[in-house]
Structure formats: structure tokens, C-alpha cells
């Protein structure tokens, strides 16, 4: 009996001893192998930026590419000393998935922004998603940058949103007359046009502007076929109508890549020669290289596409980052380059604000006016300032025309940023 009690006591002591040793190993190991930047007491805390995009669902590719671009751009800022006025603090993305739905966008932004250390936000690709995520950041008082083009984004009187890309009305006003000019130079006269595409907010803005501008130029719209984004199952009826009506040009908007592919395949299958003019730079997406020969001469307008003045380092970083975490892309398209219209500008704002206070950051952003500096290299107008609605100021607004030639897209307008000469119509 005595022996049993003694043995039980010894076993308990041994267990306690082992536990103490194991816990000590874990604690000491944490100090030895843990994150050195956290151990170094003098490093500035990271600057957390909420990043909300569709990472799953129908628009996962668009969202994932944009996020990879953001990571690459933040990496560039961090490798160049971070935000110096904040002790070299590094930008860190805090990522949320909006799941390709409007409600998802608001929920994800709400969830990510619960962290009180979030100082700014970026999101959320589709204008409809940006509409809902900016409502959240407006309520929480967090400055949010968005690539959204829809005019309706800035008609809401929000005070905390920033849109470094021009609205569709401006993009169209810059590009559409150039397209007509292109046709004239090729000896073609445009008298009729047709609308084909989805009916989301940005697209409707684009169609409205196209109708106004073309109307002034005497061009008549003879047909319109629109659908809810993500619902097109077969493009035969649409292309049958295009073939039957035979307009001189088709004004096309289709953000979902599968839908673009369906339309371009049917266009080729039905041997439709009518030039397609697209209101979105997603047409330059590398995934379309699988059918690149079907897109010959297709035109797209985009405020963000690598051009002559875009730093080569930015392009290689974006491709390397994407290869590391997502996919091996053949080139940088609009989505992968969106970040370079936003992140360098955000870094500049933070640098000038010298503070993590959201109000100060917002006020600094609204007063910003810079041009011909590194941060504006990728912006078409080479400068950035914001008007009272948060949209890029008119003096810096610009758009590229991107055109598919020989199996890949090139910017062809404006001439100072072009990497190829424009052509008209497929052979």
C-alpha cells in the first residue's frame, strides 16, 4: 500500500516535470524561431489595408488577379522603404472574399473592417460589389479606394470613397470618337451600331454614354441585346441577331470571361466581320489567349493596361506574384494592373498624412494633387487628384484603347502610350 502511494506520487511528479519542460521548449522556441520583426522592438507596426474582392464564385478569376496585383504593388512599396513618415511601416493586405455577390461584398468588408487597426480599404472589382462595400466603409469612416467605373458610384455623395479611374461617361467620351476616327482612316463609314452585353451598373452607364455620343455623330442604334451578368448560356441567338441586323459596329460589354468567350466563338463560327468595340479592359485578359485568334482587331477601352510608361519592374513583379500564389499568366492585363492605379497613390497619401488616423488620411487624400511622379506612372493622365465626389479630377482623366493583334492585346491609343498601331476590322 505504501509502495503504491509512493509510486503514484512519483508518476505525478514526473508528469508535472515533463509538462514544465515541454512548455518551456515551446516558449523558448517561439523566441528563437518566431517572427524576428515582431521581436525587434524598434520596427514600426504594419499598416493594415482591407482588401475585399470576389475570390470564389463566377468572378473569382477577376478578383484573384486583382488581389495578386495588389500584393505585388504593396511589395514594391515595402521593398522601397515602406511608408517613411510612419517609420518605414509596411503595407499589409487583410483579405476578404466577397464570393461574387453584392451581399457578400458588404458582409466581407464588414467582417474584415472589424479589426480596429485597418486604416484604409480597397475593393471590390464589379461596380455592383463596390457599391455595397463602399456603403460599409462610409459608415465605418474608412477611406476606400475602388477601381469602379460606374457613374452611379459617385452620385451617392459619399465622403470616404476614392476612384482613381475615370467614370464610364468620360471613358466613352474620350474613346468613342477615336474609334470613329479609326474607322474613317480605314475608309469605313459608321452609320449604324448595336448594343450587346450584360446589364450591370457600369455597362448601363457605358451604353447610355455611347448612345449620346454616337447620336451626336449621326450614328443610329438599330438593336440591343442585354442579359443579367452570369446568365448567358448560349450566344447563338445573340450572334444570329447581329448577323441579321448587320450593324457597322457592335458596342459590347461582357465582364464574365466565359460569356466573352461564348460571344467571340460564335462571332467566329458565324463568320461575322462586324468590328466589336468593348467597354471593358477585361478583354485583354490572358485567359482569352486560348481563343486569341478569334479576337483579332477587337477593341476595348481601359484606364488600366500596361503601356509605354508603365515601369517594367511593376509588370515583372505582378507576373511573379501571380505565378507564386495563383497562376502563370502570359501577360499583365487590366485586372492584374489595377493595383498600380491605386496602391502607389494610397502609399503617397499615407506618406503625406504621416498618420494612421483615418480622418487625416481621408482629408489628405482629398487634397492630393500630384503629377509626373513614380506613383502616377501607370495612370493614363500621369497625374492624380480627386474631385468633390472622390473621382479622379477631370484634368487627369484618360483612357487607353486596347486592341487584339496577332493573338494578344496591345494599347494602341493615345499615341504617347501606345505599343502598336491601330487597325480596323477583322480580315
Amino acid at each position, binding site marked *: 500500500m505504501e509502495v503504491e502511494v509512493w509510486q503514484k506520487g512519483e508518476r505525478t511528479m514526473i508528469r508535472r516535470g515533463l509538462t514544465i519542460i515541454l512548455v518551456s521548449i515551446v516558449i523558448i522556441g517561439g523566441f528563437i524561431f518566431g517572427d524576428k520583426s515582431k521581436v525587434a522592438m524598434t520596427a514600426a507596426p504594419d499598416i493594415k489595408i482591407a482588401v475585399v474582392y470576389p475570390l*470564389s*464564385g*463566377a468572378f*473569382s*478569376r477577376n478578383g*484573384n488577379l486583382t488581389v495578386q496585383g495588389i500584393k505585388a504593388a504593396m511589395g514594391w512599396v515595402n521593398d522601397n522603404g515602406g511608408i517613411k513618415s510612419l517609420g518605414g511601416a509596411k503595407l499589409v493586405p487583410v483579405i476578404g472574399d466577397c464570393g461574387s455577390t453584392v451581399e457578400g461584398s458588404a458582409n466581407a468588408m464588414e467582417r474584415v473592417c472589424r479589426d480596429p487597426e485597418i486604416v484604409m480599404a480597397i475593393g471590390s472589382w464589379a461596380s455592383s460589389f463596390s457599391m455595397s462595400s463602399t456603403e460599409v466603409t462610409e459608415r465605418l469612416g474608412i477611406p476606400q479606394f475602388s477601381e469602379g467605373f460606374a457613374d452611379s458610384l459617385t452620385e451617392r455623395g459619399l465622403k470616404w470613397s476614392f476612384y482613381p479611374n475615370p467614370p464610364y461617361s468620360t471613358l466613352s467620351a474620350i474613346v468613342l470618337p477615336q474609334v470613329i476616327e479609326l474607322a474613317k482612316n480605314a475608309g469605313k463609314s459608321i452609320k449604324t451600331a448595336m448594343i450587346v452585353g450584360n*446589364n450591370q451598373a457600369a455597362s448601363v452607364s457605358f451604353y447610355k454614354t455611347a448612345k449620346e455620343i454616337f447620336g451626336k455623330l449621326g450614328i443610329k442604334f438599330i438593336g440591343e*441585346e*442585354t*442579359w*443579367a451578368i*452570369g*446568365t*448567358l*448560356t*448560349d450566344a*447563338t*441567338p*445573340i450572334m*444570329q*441577331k447581329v448577323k*441579321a441586323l448587320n450593324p457597322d459596329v457592335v458596342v459590347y460589354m461582357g465582364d464574365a*470571361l*466565359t460569356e466573352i*468567350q*461564348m460571344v467571340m*466563338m460564335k462571332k*467566329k*463560327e*458565324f463568320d461575322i466581320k462586324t468590328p466589336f468595340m468593348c467597354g471593358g479592359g477585361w478583354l485583354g485578359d490572358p*485567359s482569352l489567349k*486560348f*481563343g486569341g485568334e*478569334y479576337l483579332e482587331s477587337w477593341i476595348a477601352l481601359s484606364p488600366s493596361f500596361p503601356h509605354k510608361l508603365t515601369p517594367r519592374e511593376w509588370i515583372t513583379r505582378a507576373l511573379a506574384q501571380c505565378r507564386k500564389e*495563383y*497562376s502563370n499568366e502570359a501577360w499583365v492585363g487590366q485586372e492584374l494592373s489595377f493595383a498600380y492605379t491605386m496602391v502607389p497613390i494610397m502609399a503617397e497619401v499615407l506618406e503625406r498624412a504621416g498618420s494612421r488616423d483615418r480622418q487625416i488620411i481621408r482629408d489628405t487624400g482629398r487634397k492630393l494633387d500630384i503629377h509626373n511622379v513614380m506613383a502616377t506612372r501607370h495612370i493614363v493622365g500621369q497625374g492624380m487628384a480627386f474631385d468633390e465626389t472622390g473621382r479622379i479630377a477631370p484634368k487627369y482623366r484618360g483612357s487607353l484603347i486596347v486592341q487584339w493583334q496577332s493573338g494578344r492585346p496591345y494599347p494602341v491609343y493615345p499615341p504617347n502610350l501606345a505599343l502598336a498601331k491601330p487597325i480596323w476590322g477583322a480580315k
Partner: protein
Amino acid sequence: MENGMQLIISGILVGVSYAVLAAGLALIFGVMKIINFAHASFAVLAMYFPTFWFLQWWGIDPFISAGIALPLFFILGYLTQRLLIERVIGESESETSTLIMTMGFSLLIDNFILIGWSGAPRIINQPYTLETWRVGKVLVNHAQTYSLLISLVLIGGLFLFLNKTMIGKAIKAAADDPEGCAYMGINLRFVYGVAFALGIAITATGGCLMATYRPFNPFYGESIIVILFASVVLGGMTSIAGALIGGLIIGIIQQLSSLVVSISLQNVAVFMIFVLFLYLRPQGILGKRERLI
């Protein structure tokens, strides 16, 4: 006139694709009374593997991959049924359990494809993908026509299997009277496994054929699963022949509806006709009066 003819031809070609996928769904429901929400996801999986990736890696033509998919997905379907679905059949609330289980499969498959092969939409770029025959002013796509012919062979093979083989007859018997089959010594677990496997194999092959003429992405299944259910219900729930006819009708309505309504109302037109039809004939086209399974 040519416009109408073009749309009817396109409707038939698209409808046959729906019909093949719906046939697999009807087989599974008819025998096992399982509503398989993952049905279209299996078709999408087959579009990627083997169709797209065998072409990329080894240059294997998608129509050959369709033949490879048949035994491959038969095995996958059999394992899925025997290892997972069988566990909940016969339990209380098994209908709800299998419904939720198959919804889970659907999410798993879609996101497995997304994680493994990214969300980039893919297209098969073969010589026949966009080539057409011209019949008057009507254009008939090569890839869709070859798919139609192979689909007819597949459907014919299915009917032969069900009507001329012992296991096929056992499947039909199990659909009619599972209890009676058990008393007769038929191994119901094995029969269910084969029925589910066959349904998935047919669907996967149908998916391979669809991939030859249209782009696809990991979530394409979400856009057609409702159409497949509509085809099965329109056809008469447990009738494979009915599902085939239902798929064909839906394909044709989808195309022809663009003559009278905007493309955005295409599926509205489909479901309006669907509801009207069921109002007039609730049992579906081949519901109770005639079953070919």
C-alpha cells in the same frame, strides 16, 4: 425563316447535351430516389479532367477523352455511392441527408477545381470547334454535330444495357420494387452502386462532349443544374426517355424564345412553358403512362 431554322438546329444541338446529362439524373432519381445536386458538377469535372488536361498534356482529342471518362467516372460514381451515399440510405430523414450530402459534393467539386486549376475559363481549341457546314443559309457546327452523334450512341447504349443485360434488368426491377428485389435475392447495394455509377458516367461523358464547343469554368454547373432538374421533371421524374425529351424541348425553347423576347428572358420563357406544361400534364411527358426504364 433562316433565323428560325438556325435557332431550331441550335436548339436541337444544345438540347441533346442537356438530354444526356438529364438522362443520368433521371436514372439516379428513378432507381434510388436521390436528388443529386452534384450532378452538373461531375459533368464540369469531366470537362477539366480528362477532356481539357489530356489535350494539354498529351494531345488526346476530347472525343477520345469522352470514351476514357466513361469508365473513369463509373468507378468514381460507384465509390461515391458505396462509401458515402449508401451510409445514409434507409436511415430516417435519408432524403434530406442525401440532398445535403450531394449539395456538399457540389461545393467540394467546384472549389476543388477552382483551387486546383484556377477560375480561368477554358476553351477547347480544335479544328472542329468553330468549323461549320453550310446548309442553305443555316450554319451547323462540326463539334456540336459530332457530339450529337456520339450522344445518340451513348443513349442507345444505355437503353441496350438496361433492357438486354441482367444487371440492367435488375436496375429496372429495383426502380419498380426494391423490396421485391431484396426478397428475390438481388443485391440492392450493388445495384444501386451500379445505377449511380452509370448515371455519373453518362453525365461525365456528356460533359466531355459539351466541352468541345463551349467555354467552361468551375462554376458552370450552377448555371445548368436547374435546367437539368427541369428536364427531368418535364420528362416525368423517373423516365429516362422522358428526361431526354425534356432536355431537347428545353434546348429548343431556349433558342426559339429569342425570336419573341429579349435574351435576358430566355430562361423565363423556358420556365413559363415548363409550368404551363406541368399544369396541363402534372405527371410529365412520360410520367406514369409509359416508362421505358
